[in-house]
């Protein structure tokens, strides 16, 4: 494990995020690669399974402004969210499944566990999915999510965010994360965001992109996602290849 990889992810338990204390594994994980390197039985399922290209979302699944209409349009500010899924060498990951979920414009999830006193939008489900194209590119049309309170500490509010799940070709690259918005004052106060090592936090914030912005229609945000590759030797251990 190289330091670079270690430093990207938050720890399993983080004091200021209360529910992590009893839920994150207490012991260090066993390094599977190290165990497998000593054996002659060949690689295991983790490094051999390939999941890309196995999923076929529906035609409207990527458009959260239309995929749950019940006779009207969802309320709020329309936004385009787009970017690429890459591995650490910068190669695009095609056919990756991206699933997203989020609160509505008022900061309310359409979920039985959400008791925040903000209105439900009958025309907005807050869930979508898409697969990346040959260049690793994905695109969603959705509504700017609202901030919402949670009970982690007094007056705790989550910054506006969209949850992302990425299933690319390799299991090592399985990722669930959250995309935040630039300039959100709540970011400084959020323990979930702060659990990420300081140097890596900025990678969770989308960039406003006038190029993605559609005139008279929707603001554009750009969010690239970098996941671990398919078990290839890390580039930084071997210097720069012919790339």
């Amino acid at each position, binding site marked *: 494990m190289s330091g670079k990889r270690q430093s*990207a*992810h*938050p*720890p*399993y338990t983080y004091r200021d*995020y209360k*529910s992590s204390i*009893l*839920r*994150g*594994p*207490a012991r260090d*994980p*066993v*390094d*599977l*690669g190290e*165990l497998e390197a000593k*054996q*002659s*039985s*060949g690689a*295991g*399922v*983790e490094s051999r*399974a*390939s*999941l890309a290209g*196995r*999923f*076929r*979302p*529906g035609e409207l699944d990527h458009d959260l402004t239309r995929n749950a209409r019940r006779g009207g349009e969802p309320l709020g500010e329309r936004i385009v969210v787009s970017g690429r899924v*890459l591995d*650490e*060498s910068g*190669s695009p990951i095609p056919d990756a*499944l991206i699933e*997203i979920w989020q609160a509505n414009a008022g900061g309310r999830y*359409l*979920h039985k*566990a*959400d008791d925040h006193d903000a209105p439900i939008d009958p025309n907005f*489900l807050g869930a979508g*999915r898409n697969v990346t194209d040959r260049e690793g590119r994905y695109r969603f049309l959705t509504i700017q999510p609202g901030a919402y309170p949670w009970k982690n500490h007094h007056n705790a509010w989550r910054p506006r965010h969209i*949850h992302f*799940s990425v299933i690319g070709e390799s*299991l*090592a*690259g*399985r990722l*669930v994360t*959250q995309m935040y918005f630039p300039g959100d004052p709540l970011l400084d106060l959020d323990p*979930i965001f702060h*659990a990420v090592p300081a140097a*890596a936090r900025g990678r*969770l914030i989308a960039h406003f992109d006038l190029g993605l912005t559609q005139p008279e229609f929707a603001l554009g945000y750009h969010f690239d996602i970098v*996941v*671990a590759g398919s078990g*290839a030797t890390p580039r930084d251990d071997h210097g720069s290849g012919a790339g």
Partner: protein
Amino acid sequence: MSNEPCLLTPSQTVGPYFTLGLTPTRDETGFGPLITNEIRGDGEPITIRGKVFDGAGVPVNDAMLEIVQADGNGRLDAPEFPGFARAGTGEAADNSYTFKTVKPGPLGGDQAPYICMIVFMRGMLLHACTRIYFADESANPNDPVFSRLPADRRETLLARRVETADAVSYEFDIHMQGERETVFFSLADAI
């Protein structure tokens, strides 16, 4: 075109509302599950059932589990065999999860059959990977991974076979912490 090296995107928790996007139930708007808790293919049909316990021994009601596996012939690339399924806890009254799948065959060499499982939940900032081995398999003691785990922790990866008149199921609980903490693996390239 030359590619620039890129830095990994950090992981964040799935939070309490993941069912919305990851394990939705179909409503009248038509957005339903893309990935279910079922895998169909060659092999002995089995059910895998269990609970996820937190450090206080309380069953977690908002965990999401994913499994990845070979079919009954030990194949990962059989046509029409996704080898991938997902289930949440919190639907069942007792907070158990259920997978309906087929028993995997061994990949080859000394490997015993096993299923890879990925654990996500509110409160976990990063997912954790484990393996489900089958307690009734004689190949376990020779499996290159299983046999190299500390002897007193191997048992945490064993699913127990339960046979009824018309079905075969395996029970597999996950303990996040404590004396019986499940063995979790880092995939060298992931974490």
